[in-house]
Every structure is written in structure tokens, then in C-alpha cells.
């Protein structure tokens, strides 16, 4: 059984320089209240692992605009001109990773696998500096696992065990990131009594979730 905490209290757990996985795809399914609390805390030198850089004023874009970020590992940053500018000026280091590779690297980190063998990126710039492993006559890139100090995820329903369900395209990276953070903080739309979410509707078992945020307006 887990109590729920405010975004402010959760943000206090996170120090400068932390690595954060943050769920969301173009800010859909991002933990916005958690992100606002991080911005208010004026953190610095964060590493973000996220699908994309969202847009200024939305999702992880708010942390980028606030100057809180030193490094980004993402698949796409094209809709955030501030991110582009900070990458070109050298304020933010950016590692671009194919989206399917990114999600598997996170899953591998969370599930104790040693890496990912993927054909994606072979013969492109993505291959540079990486090992190629041949299996049964086919070549694959060896991509390394990713973990983070914190995973900040957004969910639809939670119960006080920490079980989570997700809504439609707001799933995206959230269920996989819930596996790969040393501390996992979930921001649900609603929190229901234990036993209300049917076992078959749970997509992230509560054992993975360390903290729940209180609902909005509470």
C-alpha cells in the first residue's frame, strides 16, 4: 500500500545531475504536473531519456526551456526549435536513437538483458562506434541497455498498490520506462481503491511503482 504525495514532495527526491526517463510522445502521456514541479525546483544538469523533445511549453519541452537539461537521449527533436538551438550551441548534448531501438534499450535495462540486437541503423550514421554481431548469417547492431535514476511516468488509473492502467496513445513509453528507473514515480489521472482495477487491466504491476502523485486539484 502506497500513500500518494504531491508533485512538490516528489520533486524534492530528485537532485541536480539526475538521469530521468520521462514518458510521453509529443507530450501526450507525459507527467505534466511532475514536470512543472521539477521546473519550479530549478534543477540543473539533468539527463533526459525520452521519445522526443516535445514543444516549448509542453511536456519535457518545459525542462529544456528552463535550462535544466544537460543531455538528451531521444529519437526525435524536430518540433522543438529551442532544443535544436541548444544542441547546436552545445548547451545540450543530444544522442539520437531510432525509436524502436530506444524503447528496446529501455526494456533491456529494465528486464536484465545485456543489450538489443537490431537490424535498424545498419549502414547508417547510427552504426558508428557500435559492435556488429552476426547471428545465423544476418548482421545486427548491438545496442546497450538504458537505465535511469528516476522514471517519471503518466498513467490513466492507479490503485494504492501502485497498479497502473493507461489510456490509448498515452501508453507509449510509459509501461516500458516503469521497468527501468531505480525509483519510479507515477502521475495517474485518477486513483481508485485497491481491487477496483481488474487484474487483466493492469499493465504495470504495482511492485514496479515506488511513489504515486496525488490527483490534480488535491
Amino acid at each position: 500500500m502506497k500513500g500518494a504525495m504531491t508533485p512538490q514532495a516528489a520533486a524534492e527526491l530528485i537532485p541536480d545531475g539526475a538521469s530521468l526517463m520521462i514518458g510521453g510522445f509529443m507530450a501526450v502521456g507525459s507527467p505534466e504536473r511532475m514536470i512543472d514541479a521539477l521546473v519550479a525546483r530549478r534543477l540543473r544538469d539533468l539527463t533526459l531519456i525520452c521519445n522526443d523533445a516535445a514543444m516549448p511549453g509542453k511536456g519535457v519541452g518545459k525542462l529544456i526551456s528552463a535550462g535544466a537539461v544537460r543531455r538528451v537521449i531521444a529519437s526525435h527533436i524536430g518540433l522543438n526549435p529551442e532544443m535544436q538551438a541548444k544542441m547546436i550551441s552545445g548547451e545540450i548534448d543530444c544522442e539520437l536513437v531510432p525509436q524502436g531501438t530506444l524503447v528496446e534499450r529501455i526494456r533491456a535495462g529494465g528486464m536484465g538483458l545485456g543489450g538489443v540486437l537490431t537490424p535498424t541503423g545498419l549502414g547508417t550514421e547510427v552504426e558508428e562506434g557500435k559492435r556488429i554481431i552476426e547471428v545465423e548469417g544476418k548482421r545486427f547492431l548491438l545496442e546497450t541497455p538504458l537505465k535511469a535514476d528516476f522514471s517519471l511516468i503518466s498513467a490513466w488509473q492507479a490503485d494504492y498498490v501502485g497498479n497502473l492502467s493507461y489510456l490509448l496513445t498515452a501508453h507509449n513509453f510509459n509501461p516500458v520506462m516503469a521497468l527501468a528507473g531505480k525509483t519510479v514515480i507515477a502521475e495517474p489521472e485518477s486513483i481508485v481503491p485497491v481491487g477496483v482495477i481488474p487484474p487483466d487491466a493492469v499493465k504495470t504491476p504495482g511492485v514496479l511503482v515506488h511513489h504515486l502523485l496525488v490527483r490534480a486539484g488535491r
Partner: protein
Amino acid sequence: MDAKELIARRVAREIRAGMLVNLGIGLPSLVANYVPQSLGVFFQAENGVIGLGARPPEGMENLGLTDAGGGFVSAVPGAASIDSAMSFGLIRGGHLDMTVLGGLQVDEAGRLANWKVPGKMVPGMGGAMDLVTGAARVVVAMQHSARGESKVVKSCDLPLTSLRRVDLVVTELAALKPTEEGLVLLERAPGVSLKEIRDATEADLLIPGEVPEMELA
């Protein structure tokens, strides 16, 4: 008919009953407008839905149901939510029947470049590298030239998206089929001459005896 509509209507003819199809954002997303509902095609958006439907009426949008460009969509009957791991598992595993993507360049080897212009624009590859590597069929939908320069080139000088040879390239001038021997000129756009296509193309084209006009959906 403008160039984009023409391209979308030609690409739509590639889509067969019951297919699972991913349409990239921008020009490729227009293709859905010309695919009859009776075909029972499911559109996938790589951010996590199979069975993408039209944008809902004003005020009925949901923040948790968007396409890969972040635009509001609906879900058709029989739709399924998937997370990013399943989404790219389907793509990489060959379960996606077709992807339609935009392009910056395609070359004589049929290779696509569409994610980076060094020093100018570095949006990132998003899902494009997985889509081009994994989809059963890859169709590039793009304008033939940009700023007076042909996008159908001898060899891509922009960073490649994949080594994989794409299956079809559709522009407002022509439909091109990359083969082991080179780029075959498959069809002309309505009213376009062979000379116009050759003049607008940097790559060498393989031109069969007869090059029919495109049919459009």
C-alpha cells in the same frame, strides 16, 4: 489537382484489402483520404494505435488519442492500443504490410535519406529507420525536386535512413521502382513527358519501351 493530392491518390492505389499500413506525417497522411473504407484497411500510428480514424468533431477530441504528429484522431471499431515496444515490435518484425514515408533524397540503389540535413536540420530519425528497415513494403511519397534540385539522385549525399532498397517512389512526375539494376521508370504522371521526367531527375533511369500514365484512386 496539386502535386500532393496527385501523389497521395497514386499511393492510395498500392493499398490492398486488409492491410496494416503506417502513414508518415505530412504528405503521406493524405493517402488515407483516398482509401475506400470498404477495403478494411487498418492504419497504424507508431505512437500507439492500430485503427486510426478521422479527427473528431471540435470539442470531442481526447488528449490521449493522437497520431504520430500529435494531431487528434479517433479510433475505428476494432482498434487496439499498443505501447511503443509492441508498436516497434510489429514494425521491426515484419508485421506491418506497408509504410508510406516522405523523403529528402532517393538514389539509384533505392536508398532513402529523410532524417537529417547536416548543419541545417537535425530533427532525428524518430521511427523512420525502423519503418524502412522492417516494413514488408516501403513506399516513398515526395515531391520530385526541392528548391530546383532533384531529390531523385545518383547517390544520396544526405545521411541514409537505411540500406534497405525501398519498393516504390511516387512523385508528382513519376512512379519509380528501385530494382537491383537501378531505378525503373514505371509510370508517368498524367500529361507528363519522358523528357520532362529525365530533365527533372539527377539519377539515371531505366526506361522500358512503354511507360504508361499513372492511374489514380
